[in-house]
């Protein structure tokens, strides 16, 4: 196959995949969660068992816990 043709095909493939990804991403973000799971997000409540200290959620949780301890 010709080089320019391959190049154009490469751009087309990337653009198509990117468009598919963006559309699905935006749709996923905009779709409301079904009933009963509105609060189902990654947050301190769901991550109680996790020990990865670099995680922002972990840090926040421990800050809160420390505050509570102080009080």
């Amino acid at each position, binding site marked *: 196959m010709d080089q320019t043709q391959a*190049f154009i095909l*490469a751009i087309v493939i*990337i*653009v198509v995949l*990117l468009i598919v990804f*963006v559309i699905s991403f935006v749709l996923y973000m905009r779709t409301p969660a079904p009933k009963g799971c509105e609060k189902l997000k990654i947050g301190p409540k769901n991550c109680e068992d996790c020990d990865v200290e670099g995680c922002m959620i972990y840090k926040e949780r421990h800050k809160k816990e420390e505050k509570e301890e102080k009080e």
Partner: protein
Amino acid sequence: MNKYLKVSLTLATIASGSALLIGLMNLATVGAIAANKENKIKNGISRFYPEQYYYQYFEMKENSDELEDGKLLYPTINSVYIVDVPREEGYKRGYVYSTSAKNSYGQVDLLISIKEAKIDEIYVVKNTESYGQTLEDNYINKYNNGYLKDLADVKCGATYGAKIVKEQCDDAMRHYTNNYAKEGE
């Protein structure tokens, strides 16, 4: 509407920018990658024959003489390198086969050196068949170092990887006995 136009323009710019970068990089490196592959085979041959020498080679798979009933006679052999090693009286010939074979786990590319009608040493050019170094450590290096008398060893010659190694060695040996064995005598 204007907003969507802007978004799609940004996306198109990013996509074509990345395609452009990758394409340019490919143009810049494609020669070096091909040269690397050749170098690897050259290095392999100079491992077998450390002294400088003259060698010639021909591609196998393009050679139509090797067809039998529409099938390749030696399906795993890519090319043969005939090495002239300078000796005190005249030259001595060595034969190195570049082979590759595939099973359902991946591909193994080898350089097989035949000296005095015996497989002398095997050099792994590329191995995507087994994870890590298992094939080399457990099988090929053991043969190279003389721990295994025969490639058809019961203990470590029974894996799928070893099977395709053996297949390649068989092809090389067969080609050697059919074409070059008499020459050497």
